[in-house]
């Protein structure tokens, strides 16, 4: 009798549990790996909560260093080893061709979601017809400027780089004379890493100096305009930018900016929300505009950034992982990210969303900027992109630190890239 009772009880309990969870699937634990920049880690829990509630699964975020170069090295290692620990990778827009083999093809599962995204971004994540990753936000940098300081000195946001340098100098000198010894004119990303490739590409492109390697594979970097652009940037170091800018990544630049010690900053949109946070010294005191141009009439150039989510081929929870990827790339998560972290959505309709426009006025403004953004040459250079980028940022970093002139370094760079290219990329 007792045994019978026990069995009956157990059966009822199981049935009750099934009713609660909806399906006879065990709750799964998914691991998501991503670089930790700005508020990404803090916001992630809130971001995935609705998905966790709906599916009963849990997500753990594995934070990585902020530098994309460091992240890439680690991811490549994990993927080459076929690591099953990580289910989802947050990937940079430039990685798709290099890591394509390790990720699940998302073409079929995302066929309803894909048409709502900007086609150019979807295309950047498609390698030989395989959709490697789903875009979760896009990025195009902005020039941040201090409204209060510009007003005080009767200046307007600069249109050209020369104007920026001039304004920065005047304000820096003026403020320092008033005792603000730590104030700098312009902070940006000058460390030798992927971020410098982005910054330098913008200078060169806005000077009409091409985009390092053109879409057809020609190496175009050694030209007069590019030399002029780099010489201009060199002239900033130690004058309007601190010498230490040569070791800055995004977060170091934001550190100087957000403590109120810079007039201008080049950074991605994520810094907008953080700059307006309660702990920020520049809350409500700054505006954003497009990056300056070489000379009047040139087009401003912003490097196309952006992040995507890819499902590892080696994941043991692929179904749940794909479901999470679809959620993160979907309208609900993108909207949350846009409002909480000022990340630019990749879903076209969200640019007309009134909630986003109210919370982050920068986002609707930014639609045109990123639509005209310059891609880094990851498409033409395929698997060699990292090496191209490393050679480029080294040449730029050397120029900026005074090891050889821009003309000498770019000439050498051209030789190295030609060598690397060999008979074809």
């Amino acid at each position, binding site marked *: 009798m007792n045994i019978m009772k026990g069995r009956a009880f157990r059966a009822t309990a199981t049935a009750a549990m099934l009713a609660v969870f909806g399906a006879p699937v065990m709750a799964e634990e998914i691991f998501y790996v991503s670089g930790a920049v700005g508020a990404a880690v803090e916001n992630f829990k809130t971001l995935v909560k609705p998905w966790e509630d709906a599916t009963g699964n849990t997500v753990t975020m594995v934070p990585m260093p902020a530098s994309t170069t460091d992240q890439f090295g680690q991811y*490549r*290692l994990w993927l080459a080893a076929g690591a099953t620990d990580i289910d989802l990778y947050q990937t940079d827009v430039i990685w798709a061709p290099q890591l394509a083999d390790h990720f699940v093809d998302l073409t079929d599962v995302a066929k309803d979601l894909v048409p709502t995204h900007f086609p150019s971004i979807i295309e950047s994540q498609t390698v030989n017809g395989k959709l490697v990753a789903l875009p979760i936000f896009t990025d195009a940098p902005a020039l941040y400027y201090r409204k209060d300081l510009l007003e005080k000195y009767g200046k307007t946001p600069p249109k050209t780089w020369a104007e920026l340098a001039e304004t920065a100098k005047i304000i820096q000198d003026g403020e320092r004379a008033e005792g603000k010894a*730590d104030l700098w004119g312009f902070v940006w990303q000058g460390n030798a890493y992927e971020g410098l490739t982005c910054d330098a590409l913008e200078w060169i492109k806005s000077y009409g100096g091409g985009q390092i390697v053109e879409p057809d594979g020609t190496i175009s970097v050694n030209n007069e305009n590019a030399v002029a652009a780099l010489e201009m940037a060199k002239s900033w170091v130690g004058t309007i930018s601190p010498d*230490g800018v040569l070791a800055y990544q995004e977060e*170091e630049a934001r550190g100087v900016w957000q403590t109120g010690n810079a007039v201008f900053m080049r950074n991605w949109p994520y810094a907008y929300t953080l700059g307006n946070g309660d702990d920020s010294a520049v809350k409500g005191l700054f505006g954003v505009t497009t990056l300056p141009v070489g000379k009047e009439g040139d087009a401003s150039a912003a490097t196309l950034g952006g992040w995507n989510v890819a499902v590892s081929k080696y994941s043991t929870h692929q179904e749940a992982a794909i479901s999470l990827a679809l959620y993160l790339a979907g309208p609900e998560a993108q909207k949350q990210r846009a409002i909480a972290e000022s990340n630019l959505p990749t879903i076209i309709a969200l640019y007309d969303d009134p909630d986003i426009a109210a919370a982050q006025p920068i986002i609707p403004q930014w639609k045109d900027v990123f639509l005209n953004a310059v891609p880094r040459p990851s498409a033409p250079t395929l698997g060699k992109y990292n090496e191209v980028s490393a050679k480029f940022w080294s040449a730029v970093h050397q120029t900026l630190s005074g090891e050889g002139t821009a003309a000498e370094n770019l000439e050498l760079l051209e030789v190295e890239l030609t060598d690397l290219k060999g008979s074809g990329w």
Partner: protein
Amino acid sequence: MATNDVGGAGGGLSLSQQRQRAAFWFIAPMLAALFCVAAWPLMRTIWFSLTNTALSDLYGGEWIGFDNYLSLRVLDSGRWIWRGTLVDPAWWNAVWNTVRFAFVSVFFETILGLIVALVLNAEFKGRGLVRAAILIPWAIPTIVSAKMWAWMLNDQFGILNDIMLRLGLIDQKIAWTASVDTAMYAVLTVDIWKTTPFMALLILAGLQMVPRDIYEAAKLDGINPVKVFFKITLPLIRPALAVAIIFRMLDALRIFDLVYVLTPNSAATKTMSVISRENMIDFDKFAYGAAQSTLLFAIIALFVSLYIWLGKVDLSGEGQK
């Protein structure tokens, strides 16, 4: 040996042979472990360096001989160019950085370590506590101390610039890790700070082996302390010092973590290990990186052999019998 063997000639094994056999079985597990964790990876790396293996396909490499080290290529234009690590300026820059780093850091660590050890060898109150405290930099994991120093050396928020500015030693903030001129000094400073305790500890062990009565005799003879140090202390701790220097040299030549955290991509501080990792992982040139690792191994082996040979260092301990 030979005389011992004569005694066991009647059948069975001599005592010495039995001992050797027993010793072999005691050592066997360690030999097996060493083969797995040292010899096998080393041989595998050397093999990889002779193939065109890529990280994404570790088992698909094909034999290409010494092309990763040196190869001659004819361009379409008919021009001949040499390719490979041995003609790669980035590699030789890294070799130079590493060697410079190793010599300078080991030199300062030895001098400072010796001074610290002499102080700690003297009798004073609370010596045990000071001995423990001085080991702290060595006990902190390198990644942690490197990150800590990175913040201290930061140009805008760093405490070092702040202190020096207040003391009037510098008139503007210096970007220690960013500037090509100071990046190497920054790395050296942190390494010396971190490893001096290790040197001090090894030298201290040597100092404690020196018999006290020699010092007493010297004292009675009225020999001045400087002479005592150079004529008695230094010769007696030389074996310990030599071993400590070899250890540090081996360590310094394969320096990776400190540079990787402080100045990861600066050509002024890139060392052999850093550049080899970069090729293996970031650039997907696994075999090329393996060739650099192999050269790194060869260079370290060369340095250590040279040092042992030139310094007549007695590692086998035979001389003490």
